[in-house]
């Protein structure tokens, strides 16, 4: 059913994040060994490491690519309270022959007083904008006004969420029907502020981000959050990794004409909820067409979820490590399977 191929990553410590570039031909990995590695997929389909360098003075939590319209640009965030922007420069010809490329730091963003837990670029139609969130509960939105000069970034917005933030997700929709929207998840165990997912929306008139919605039903720490690609729907879909996997439907309600200055009101529905991991869920992510959601949990499994044409969600695959040390084959091999429950199928 599945085949897997392994690549020796050579990080000296835990890998915390892996990010594919927009076209899926390059990938970046970041680690507790404080470095980021960039890998390129060759014409032979094999991945080669083309750059590896120390990026921070603490564990690097996340790494992310900017849209290729802005060039070859990466952002990373770290326990060392900073986020950084990196750009690849076209190297000397002998570097190209050796298959190496150089990345230089364009800027360091030092506004956070605590570990920076997530870094994401905003959708490209908003320009070159970078967003970070930190354990100090602040979401910061930076903009590079001149896309040719990546060393100049200005802090455009600071959103104080009152809770330690763990993850952010931009609504990727570029439709003019709705303003820019960002969801922030918190892993704070504070019980006073019980809603652990907040949604902020940009207001054209005030030129500020205002809170549009708090998902009060999400009361447990949230570890990951992600909007689904839009695909022409009138509503938004948001997946959340918390003590289970939850998929919310956010339906914008029609504005009354008198109240047109406030943020959009949403009707919030739960589209699906899965507790198959039976434990904390740490990551959720949509595939490109938003037809599949993957989640990873404390049970050491990655589960794939799919909706059929009746909008009924079902698990369509489970991946797990076999618990063996590195096998080093490097060839694509079919994965062996085991039955996870002891019940015999009758």
């Amino acid at each position, binding site marked *: 059913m599945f085949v897997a191929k*392994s690549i020796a990553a050579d990080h000296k410590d835990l890998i915390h994040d892996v990010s594919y570039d927009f076209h*899926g031909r390059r990938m970046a990995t970041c680690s507790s060994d404080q470095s980021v590695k960039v890998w390129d997929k060759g014409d032979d389909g094999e991945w080669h490491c083309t750059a590896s360098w120390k990026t921070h003075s603490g564990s690097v939590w996340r790494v992310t690519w900017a849209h290729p319209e802005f060039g070859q640009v990466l952002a990373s965030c770290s326990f060392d309270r900073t986020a950084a922007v990196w750009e690849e420069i*076209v190297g000397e010809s002998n570097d190209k022959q050796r298959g190496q490329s150089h990345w230089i730091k364009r800027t360091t963003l030092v506004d956070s007083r605590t570990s920076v837990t997530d870094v994401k670029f905003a959708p490209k139609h908003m320009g070159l904008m970078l967003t970070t969130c930190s354990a100090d509960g602040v979401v910061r939105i930076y903009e590079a006004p001149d896309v040719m000069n990546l060393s100049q970034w200005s802090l455009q917005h600071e959103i104080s969420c009152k809770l330690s933030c763990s993850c952010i997700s931009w609504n990727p929709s570029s439709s003019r029907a709705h303003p820019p929207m960002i969801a922030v998840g918190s892993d704070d165990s504070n019980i006073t502020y019980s809603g652990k997912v907040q949604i902020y929306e940009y207001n054209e008139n005030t030129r500020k981000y205002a809170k549009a919605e708090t998902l009060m039903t999400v009361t447990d720490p949230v570890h990951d959050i992600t909007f689904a690609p839009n695909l022409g729907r009138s509503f938004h879909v948001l997946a959340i990794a918390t003590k289970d996997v939850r998929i919310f439907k956010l339906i914008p309600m029609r504005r009354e004409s008198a109240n047109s200055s406030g943020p959009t009101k949403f009707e919030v529905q739960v589209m699906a909820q899965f507790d198959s991991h039976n434990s904390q869920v740490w990551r959720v992510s949509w595939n490109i*067409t938003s037809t599949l959601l993957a989640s990873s949990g404390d049970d050491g499994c990655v589960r794939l979820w799919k909706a059929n*044409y009746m909008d009924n969600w079902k698990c369509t695959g489970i991946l*797990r*490590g076999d618990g063996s040390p*590195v096998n080093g084959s490097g060839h694509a091999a079919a994965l062996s*399977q085991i039955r996870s429950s002891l019940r015999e199928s009758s």
Partner: protein
Amino acid sequence: MEELQQNLIPGAGFYQKHLGFEWGPGDLIVYETNYKLQGPRSAGSPSVHIVRRDEDICSPILRKLFSESHLIFVGLQKIKEDVPSKNKKSQFVSISKNYRSVIRACMEELQQNAVSTQSGSLASQYGDQVSILLAIELIWNLCEVLFIDAAPAGSLLLQLLDWVRLHKSDVDAKAREVLQSDSPAQHQSYWDVVISLVLQGRTDEARQVLSKQASLRAESSSVFKRMDGLLQTMPIFNPTGTQTLTEFEVKWRHWHEECDRCLQDNTFASNRHLETICKILVGDEDTLLEQKELLSTWYHFLVTRLLFTHPTIKPPDLHYYAQSSMNMFLGPRASPEPLDIILLSAFEFDLHQVIKDCSIALNNWWFVAHLTDLLDHCKLLQSHNLHFGSNLREFLVLEYASGLFTHHSLWQLAVDYFDHCPEFGRVYLELQIERVPLDTERKAIKVLRICEDRQMSEQVRSICKIMAKRALRNNRLGSALSWTIRAKDAAFATLISERFLQDYSNKGSFTDLDLLDNLGPAMLLSDSLTFLGKYREFHRLYGEKRFSEAARLLLSLMTAKIAPRSLWMTLLTDALPLLEQKEVIFSVDQTYELMSCLEELNSGTKHSNLTDQDEDIESTKTELLRLALARNLTMAIVKEGTIET
């Protein structure tokens, strides 16, 4: 709920218990990690794993299936709505047959490869694919008979017989073997062949094989003649003939009674094989079930049973016989396979169930997408009261096409599929076409053309911008400029024009002359670009010695404010050679204008960051210009004041 099987990734889960992941194009990257820990640990994460579903898309032979069926699909979509339905039915049946022949061709190639390959694992892989395609063709064929051709009573059984015969080809091989042997009647498979032929309703062929027996035994020839007679007189319905179904039914009953009489009279008691055949002709269920090995499948049993008990079976009555045949054949302990369930659902005319079960059983959407699409065209999904009829078709086609999109060459086929999904096709295409890696200019242009044809202007802009940016990074200014123009990106055009001009002032010449000379109306995209184009034109005119035109152009660049202030000095310096020609080129008025430009330039802010040396050079240039302008003015006044005689 039954838990799914877990797929184990070797080499993961040893050091760390959590799995991190990220979606890629068509695959997932999975790696060991630990989400709870903060701060460094000594154990590293040795590998990342690229995981994907084992899909047929990777097989080169199946790719032929995809590309040929793509042609059929596109042809099907073009069938006009207003053609009368009778003609359409035959068209649909023929399309269905086309699909099936593509499947068969693919199967044969796979089979050949399975036989010829050296590798054992490849052979078994091919073998697996062949069985899957066999099953697919079996199901498709049945759907064609029941749904698309929708044969009525009478023809229905005949078509089902064809269907069974097509999928049980070992009978022909055995028959050939028997007939070609030295003494066919003694061959150990002789009676098996005869009975198999009878079971398939191939009475003429059965008679032919039987005749080999008859010639040997003179004393029992009458018994064989009797059997021959029965077989010969068995009525077969002729759908194109004049006989009605009722008439046929009457005839058939007579014949059936005659066979029964032979049994009652013990006519064939002397030969147990002939007795068995007679019992088959009468449709005796127990006898039929005894032939399990020869029938090999319950649906063969079903069709044979119907042939000898209910040859005029009507479509709605099929399902009862299907269910009971399956139960009888498989017995109480055996459980039906997924294929059996699918076929049963087809016999029950439950299209929805067929599609659903096929979607689950197969790891590729090819079959359900194309079949459902065809059934939808036959308007069959709607008649089954599925309000999401056309949505179901679209859902499956979108799934199939999205799967194709991750492939480096098949993605182009996917475009046509998206084009024929009215609700979501466009938005799916917009989303996925942006992700096609732009490895080469040629590929980028291919992708662009697809977007331009569909007025996907944002995608066009984005792709051009990406290519422009890439070219600029690699210092290929000409390429960057042409992509920028195609992207209609004014800001970027300004940037690149400025780089061109910078290059010019560094090197003293322009690159990419062809491009600059043929900008045409694209020049208007940005002011800087317009200036660049016109400036290059000035140089060209000068080179062609069309001095007065060049002079006019140069002046207009400054007076019409097309040229940026920063370059005025350069332009004025360019005017020097024109001023120093023997012939007067600039008119009096033009010279006055140049002079005022020069003064305007000098009255502006002084460049405080210039070194003393640079300031000297600047003032020298200004002096030179003033002198040249004054001289030109003199000559121009004289020239214009002189009356030409």
